[in-house]
């Protein structure tokens, strides 16, 4: 009889708190449709690894499958990099290629990463601060790769913050954008001319980006390279079947394992710390200052430009594709139902995807020794 209840004696209140956190993640995924592909596996995984003596994770000499998956796919950054092939295959750089100047907004909207790096360094050692700052890349795979390479002690909290805030972009960004812009600025119209982009440009673009990023920020070359490899598969025109597989089957498979494997780092003793709350706060700071960086950059450009830019499009440079592009588009429609900024915001949004990966590479260049 004792064998039936003896494990119950190993249960502690921290584990139950983690079940509740897991439940909240599952609720947000299902009811609020917030990044369900990742928050749901993470939520379930949080419950799974917080059962007393859970067989899903290594206990003493007995290896657990989630710990094995973690070593096989996350500790060596394989899962996020493979996922990047799928993401690269999903992205259409067309709106960006026809208006290359939009790329600059993607660069400006990485400001939050570096501001948060400085802020986090007041509380954490520099490698942990850099790993926390990269939450501002609004890009899960980049956060995992940087956090792993810098050997951060807070990878679980960083992952939860990165994916949760990506899902919260429609809530976080609008008040910041409104705070930094006037009604008149939000009504600025931007004529969009879709210039045709040659197939040669579409094919050479991912190759050139890989070379340039690799030369300037060599630590970013795996991230950029896998993203651009996926895009090259999409654009080359002779690998449609592979492109479709990368976009759907490959991305889905990796996502299933990624979410639940990340949860192996959400064990109560590692997760329920004051540091986790601070990391969640710093992640929010990163998203806020990313948004502010993009908007303020556009406002500065407007001082010199005759044809004004709607500064809201700067906020789409946060990466978080395609949410932030849609947020800007909806805000513009709210101010003026005939003002369509979707294509411009999408162009900025994909430039943010590239810029965030490069920012991750630069962070690694600075701190990976």
């Amino acid at each position: 009889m004792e064998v039936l209840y003896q494990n119950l004696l190993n249960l502690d209140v921290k584990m139950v708190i983690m079940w509740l956190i897991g439940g909240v993640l599952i609720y947000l995924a299902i009811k609020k449709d917030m990044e369900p592909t990742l928050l749901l596996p993470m939520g379930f995984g949080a419950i799974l690894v917080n059962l007393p003596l859970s067989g899903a994770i290594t206990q003493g000499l007995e290896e657990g499958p989630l710990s094995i998956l973690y070593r096989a796919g996350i500790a060596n950054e394989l899962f996020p990099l493979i996922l990047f092939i799928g993401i690269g295959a999903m992205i259409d750089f067309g709106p960006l290629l026809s208006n290359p100047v939009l790329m600059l907004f993607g660069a400006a909207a990485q400001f939050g990463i570096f501001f948060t790096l400085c802020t986090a360094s007041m509380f954490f050692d520099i490698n942990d601060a850099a790993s926390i700052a990269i939450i501002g890349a609004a890009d899960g795979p980049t956060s995992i790769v940087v956090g792993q390479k810098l050997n951060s002690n807070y990878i679980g909290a960083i992952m939860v913050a990165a994916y949760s805030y990506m899902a919260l972009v429609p809530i976080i960004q609008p008040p910041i954008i409104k705070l930094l812009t006037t009604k008149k600025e939000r009504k600025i119209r931007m004529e969009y001319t879709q210039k045709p982009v040659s197939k040669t440009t579409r094919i050479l673009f991912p190759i050139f980006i890989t070379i340039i990023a690799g030369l300037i920020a060599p630590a970013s070359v795996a991230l950029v390279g896998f993203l651009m490899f996926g895009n090259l598969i999409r654009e080359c025109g002779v690998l449609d079947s592979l492109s479709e597989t990368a976009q759907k089957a490959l991305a889905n498979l990796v996502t299933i394992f990624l979410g639940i494997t990340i949860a192996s780092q959400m064990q109560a003793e590692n997760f329920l710390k004051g540091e986790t709350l601070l990391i969640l706060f710093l992640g929010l700071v990163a998203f806020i200052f990313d948004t502010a960086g993009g908007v303020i950059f556009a406002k500065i450009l407007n001082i010199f430009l005759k044809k004004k830019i709607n500064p809201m499009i700067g906020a789409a440079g946060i990466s978080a594709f395609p949410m932030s592009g849609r947020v800007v588009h909806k805000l513009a429609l709210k101010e003026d139902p005939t003002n369509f900024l979707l294509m411009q915001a999408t162009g900025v949004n994909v430039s943010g995807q590239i810029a965030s990966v490069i920012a991750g590479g630069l962070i690694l260049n600075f701190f990976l020794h």
Partner: protein
Amino acid sequence: MLLIAALFDPMQFVENLRYMGLGMLGIFIVIGTIALLTVLLNRLTAKEQDEQPEQKG
């Protein structure tokens, strides 16, 4: 939390500002180079583009 309190050092913010400067400079250099290259690519392949009609939206 006690560890954080022990590590708290406001001067680190100032000391690490150089990474903010270097990081933003680095991103603008890389993205600027990519943007210039894209303009160049668009110009060099303009003949190929002319075969397709321009769309306005």
